[in-house]
């Protein structure tokens, strides 16, 4: 377990403007991104993702902290001297240059001989399947093709780290799905470290090796998609990643007693007192009335393979269950059911 670190951000703080206009975009963010990994920064709009990316690229200088690239302190190195390239959200293609010239721009600026540039351009254009468009101008391409040019342009100089700021957000759903697997493929083929920014949790879960969840300028949790989904460290993360039920309760021995008076078996890790239980809807199983927490079906929503049940508990609170439509019997609004939740599927969060 000694993977080399590509990007090491230490205690990054960023405050825009000064005085009463000051905006704290990043509080105190520390993050280590490993070489060759697909790392995603996930968080709602305005949480500071772009700011962190711009600090890594060199367009912003952090107010505090330092950034290291492969062990070298680059905090105050100008962007054109960092072996880091960016795929901009708006693409930012040069409108006066052809596709090939756009893609070759970085290598040309680095002073590479024209022959090498041409070879690299041809290779990268093939990688993004745009060989036939080399002589077009960017405005003669569709949105999806422009996206690929932006990607090719950033990949051509073979940066140590590729930064992607919500690159897929302007594409329609079908194209976005295609580009997701395309990006994944490119990352595997090139072995370049990708730092990908998105506010779409599904995108983050499907594409990443690891995810960093951000909120209000702070990094809340870093982990694999599985970690983040199954073991969110707090309510914000649990809520942001997928659908989650929250139940308030109090620790009693090895159990947590919830508002209905029922005691749930949970796996405790030293928590005491008031806690919040986070339970994924697919972890809630229903049986006809019997042992377990009694509930009444308030609403059912058929979603094809799954059915969503909105369940009303004894104390008036609600919880959502997501059950495979084919399994067992189906329930109707008004039915009284019994809820069972596997102890291991319950996340115990500090209230």
């Amino acid at each position, binding site marked *: 377990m000694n993977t080399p670190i590509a990007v090491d951000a230490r205690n990054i703080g960023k405050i825009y403007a000064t005085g009463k206009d000051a905006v704290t975009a990043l509080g105190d963010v520390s993050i280590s991104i490993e070489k060759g990994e697909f790392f995603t920064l996930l968080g709602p709009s305005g949480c500071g993702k772009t700011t962190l990316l711009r600090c890594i690229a060199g367009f912003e200088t952090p107010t505090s902290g330092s950034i290291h690239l492969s062990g070298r302190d680059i905090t105050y190195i100008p962007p054109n001297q960092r072996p880091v390239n960016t795929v*901009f959200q708006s693409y930012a293609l040069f409108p006066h240059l052809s596709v090939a010239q756009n893609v070759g*721009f970085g290598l040309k600026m680095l002073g590479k001989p024209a022959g090498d540039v041409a070879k690299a351009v041809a290779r990268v254009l093939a990688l993004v399947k745009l060989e036939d468009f080399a002589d077009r101008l960017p405005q003669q391409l569709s949105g999806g093709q422009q996206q690929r040019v932006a990607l090719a342009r950033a990949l051509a100089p073979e940066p140590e780290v590729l930064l992607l700021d919500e690159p897929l957000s302007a594409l329609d759903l079908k194209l976005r799905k295609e580009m997701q697997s395309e990006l994944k493929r490119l990352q595997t083929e090139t072995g370049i470290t990708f730092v990908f920014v998105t506010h779409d949790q599904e995108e983050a879960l499907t594409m990443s090796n690891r995810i960093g969840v951000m909120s209000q300028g702070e990094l809340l949790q870093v982990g694999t998609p599985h970690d983040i989904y199954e073991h969110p460290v707090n309510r914000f993360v649990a809520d942001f990643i997928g659908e989650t039920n929250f139940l308030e309760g109090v620790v009693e021995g090895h159990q947590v007693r919830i508002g209905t008076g029922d005691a749930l078996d949970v796996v405790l890790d030293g928590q005491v007192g008031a806690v919040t239980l986070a339970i994924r809807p697919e972890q809630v199983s229903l049986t006809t009335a019997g042992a377990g927490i009694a509930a009444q079906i308030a609403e059912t929503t058929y979603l094809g393979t799954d059915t969503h049940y909105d369940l009303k508990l004894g104390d008036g609170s609600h919880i959502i269950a997501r059950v495979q439509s084919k399994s067992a019997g189906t329930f109707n609004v008004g039915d009284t059911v019994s809820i069972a939740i596997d102890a291991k599927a319950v996340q115990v969060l500090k209230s």
Partner: protein
Amino acid sequence: MNKKRAFDVTTLPGFTFIAILSFVLLYAPIATLVIYSFNGGNSVNQWGGFSLQWYVVAFNNQAVQDATVRSLIIALWASVISTTVAMMAALGTTRRGRFKGQTAIYMIINQPLMVPEIVTAVALLIFFSSVKIATGYTGLGYLILAHSAFCVPFAYLPIKARLEGMDTSMETAAADLYATPWQTFRYVTLPLLLPGVIAGAMLAFIISLDNVIITEFVKSAGQDTLPTYMLGQLRRALTPEVNAISTALLALTVLILIAFVFLTKKRE
């Protein structure tokens, strides 16, 4: 749109009449000037048949030739110098966000548009005459400098307009792709700015070509430009030669203006 009765000046009574009258007032004198440049007679207001003789006379007039060359040299230098200065000013004022004293800077750059030209002319006359005494230099440099100065705002405006329409994302992308600040300017900013720069240079060229007042005050003996030569001719017998020169100047200006409109249109 809730403007059911938006004010529309074209519906006012007499609009058409006033519009036509304005055009007549604007263009009738120019049309007359152009027509009489082809006069076969010796008068600027009595028609003596069609002829190109006055163009031939003007073309063969050594003084006109000299003045034309002088005008073109001055206009060329003035447009190059003023456009370069204006481009740097525009980059400085638009490429770094808002800053303290921005309005003051705009005022200073546009000063020649606001200060009465005769005041500038007198000031330059006095200033340059002491410089002439001190240095002994009496060449075209004074005129070139003076023209460059008052052409700056005309070159500045189209460049600034173009820059304001360009966000900084292109420059950011260039820096991301290893371009040094100079390379960013050379390969990204300048090419994207070029239509504005050319438009600015053309405007400056015309403004310089056309100038009378400052030129009249600053020029040394024997440094007539085309406009000041024509002004001098007025004091003598007026012949259609002046019409011919004016028409040629007009044609050149119109050509440049058409190119200018073409260039500014093409950007979107």
